[in-house]
């Protein structure tokens, strides 16, 4: 067989003509004898997928596969990083899927001609126990679009891991470089043990109903609720009940204990742990005599009771209307608005927020009209508002009013264009054209 015969058969393969398994075997065996030839090498790479597919039909496919490996290694040896592996352009999803299939050794999936040789090159390198040199790893990674900032097609989930799993977890870091990072991380050797951890078990057991709840301290929200607590403190002062002063009204508890009890009750209520809040408030009622304190605590208890009733409505629309009414009619209730806000935060998924607030599209964008008083509106974060706006935009889209929908998205973008929600609003706005 001469070179012409070989080139003819390679061309037949390239154009999809079927060759018998014996002919394929002959092609492969012939190729194995060839010297490194750039022209012929390109032709071989162009038909690698066909060879793969056809080899499956051969009575001895392993032999064929082995031959092909030899051939491709021969024509590519020595492995030249960047020559066969580095793809100049990002792969489209279909090509990525082909790479994935190739790396999963799925021979039945044909390879894009531009990727011919990639699989072999990768496998030849990564199948060896010895890891690749850093520069070659980097190029393999780049070729496979494994960089973290490149979104992967869902079908490629695991591809990055699969390849890097073979390359080693620190593909681009030498052991010395890794040791430096570890030494830096070791600087953070201690985690301070908070006092609150000692009480955690009791709180958990109380919360799950496995222990008595009365008087249990719930939790002390930290910086996340800092602004809310500040707002609550201001409101308390405004009501003439400064935390440091009201406990002097006498009763069975000393001042610091009473203040702690009140704080516990407030925090519990703000976090929706109403049973614990009520238990603490009632304890205050039993032990304090100051009429201002009693009035405030009674108000909180009443608003909590009404809020729980409102929240128990099974119909979402009815529920939110009841809550809105409560918030409007009980302006002196201090903890319930914050509980409401926190509940919104907990239900941060778009669907949950939608069920909570976005009920009447015709009233979109006018939050005050929802019956939410200013103090609640003021403590809603931009992020929460953005989610609400996006949900409202979607509702307008469903109703076919794209102008209103755009207004919603634009306002969400105005609040914070760079946040995740802002980006989402941008995408939706762009989709509307």
């Amino acid at each position, binding site marked *: 067989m001469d070179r012409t015969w070989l080139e003819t058969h390679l061309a037949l393969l390239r154009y999809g003509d079927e060759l018998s398994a014996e002919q394929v075997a002959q092609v492969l065996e012939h190729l194995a004898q060839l010297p490194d030839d750039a022209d012929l090498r390109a032709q071989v790479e162009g038909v690698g997928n066909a060879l793969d597919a056809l080899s499956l039909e051969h009575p001895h496919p392993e032999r064929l596969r082995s031959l092909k490996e030899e051939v491709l290694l021969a024509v590519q040896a020595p492995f030249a990083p960047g020559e066969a592996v580095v793809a100049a352009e990002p792969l489209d999803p279909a090509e990525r899927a082909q790479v994935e299939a190739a790396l999963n050794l799925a021979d039945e999936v044909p390879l894009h001609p531009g990727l011919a040789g990639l699989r072999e090159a990768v496998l030849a390198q990564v199948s060896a126990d010895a890891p690749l040199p850093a520069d070659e790893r980097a190029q393999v990674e780049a070729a496979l679009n494994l960089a973290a900032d490149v979104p992967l097609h869902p079908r490629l989930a695991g591809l990055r891991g699969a390849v890097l*799993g073979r390359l080693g977890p620190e593909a681009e870091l030498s052991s010395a470089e890794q040791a430096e990072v570890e030494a830096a991380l070791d600087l953070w050797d201690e985690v301070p043990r908070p006092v609150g951890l000692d009480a*955690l078990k009791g709180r958990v057991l109380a919360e799950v109903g496995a222990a008595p709840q009365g008087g249990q301290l719930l939790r002390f929200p930290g910086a996340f609720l800092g602004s809310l607590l500040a707002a609550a403190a201001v409101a308390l002062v405004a009501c003439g009940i400064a935390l440091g002063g009201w406990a002097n009204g006498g009763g069975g508890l000393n001042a610091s204990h009473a203040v702690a009890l009140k704080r516990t009750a407030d925090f519990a209520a703000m976090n929706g742990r109403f049973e614990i809040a009520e238990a603490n408030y009632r304890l205050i009622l039993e032990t304090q005599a100051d009429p201002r304190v009693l009035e405030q605590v009674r108000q909180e208890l009443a608003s909590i009771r009404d809020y729980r009733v409102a929240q128990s409505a099974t119909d979402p629309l009815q529920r939110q209307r009841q809550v809105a009414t409560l918030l409007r009619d009980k302006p002196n209730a201090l903890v319930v608005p914050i509980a409401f806000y926190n509940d919104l935060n907990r239900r941060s998924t778009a669907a949950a927020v939608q069920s909570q607030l976005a009920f009447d599209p015709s009233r979109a964008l006018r939050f005050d009209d929802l019956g939410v008083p200013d103090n609640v509106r003021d403590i809603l974060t931009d992020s929460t508002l953005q989610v609400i706006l996006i949900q409202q935009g979607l509702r307008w889209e469903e109703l076919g009013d794209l102008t209103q929908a755009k207004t919603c998205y634009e306002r969400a973008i105005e609040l914070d264009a760079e946040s995740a929600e802002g980006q989402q609003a941008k995408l939706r706005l762009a989709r509307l054209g």
Partner: protein
Amino acid sequence: MAIDPEELARRFQGGDDQAFADLIDVFQERFYRVAYRILGDADGALDVVQDAFVKLHKSIGQWDADSKFSSWAFRVVTNLAIDRIRRQTRERKAWEQRAQEEPAYLDDTTDRGLVAQERQRLLGEVKAAIEELPPGQRAVVALRHYEGFTLKEIADIRGCALGTVKSTLHQAFRSLRNSLGPQTLSRATAIQGVA
């Protein structure tokens, strides 16, 4: 004698409430450390741990007794911590606030004091670099580097492929290297040698 978490979990699944209380004893500090490393915020970490235990209590029926309880439990903790970060709008403030609470050694000019100052400064840089990592990478670093889980265990905890854990860890280390820079890294190595 070491307490077997799986045995405790099985007992709790069978209705033994005391076993749940014992599970809290076994896991609360580790849960807290992981949550704290991810969040950088003590109060937030406490909340996460509490929510995690409550969730475990409610969902114990979903635990497959043939699987490792700790993997399932740490998955709940890391997911809650990651969710919290994503919700949290004041994260940076929390870190900054906590950083300010770190002890300072400004008045100590002895050799030991200077080393402590340098260490404190570097620690601030390390924490800032960790803060820049995406939540998922923070979780993997916390589980691997600080809690000593194997990569396979982390894959179980995170519910992903082993390779994904490796690549996530790799990306995290690469990001940390880039954030910290060669000078900080070499100083960190040197000061660890002093210590």
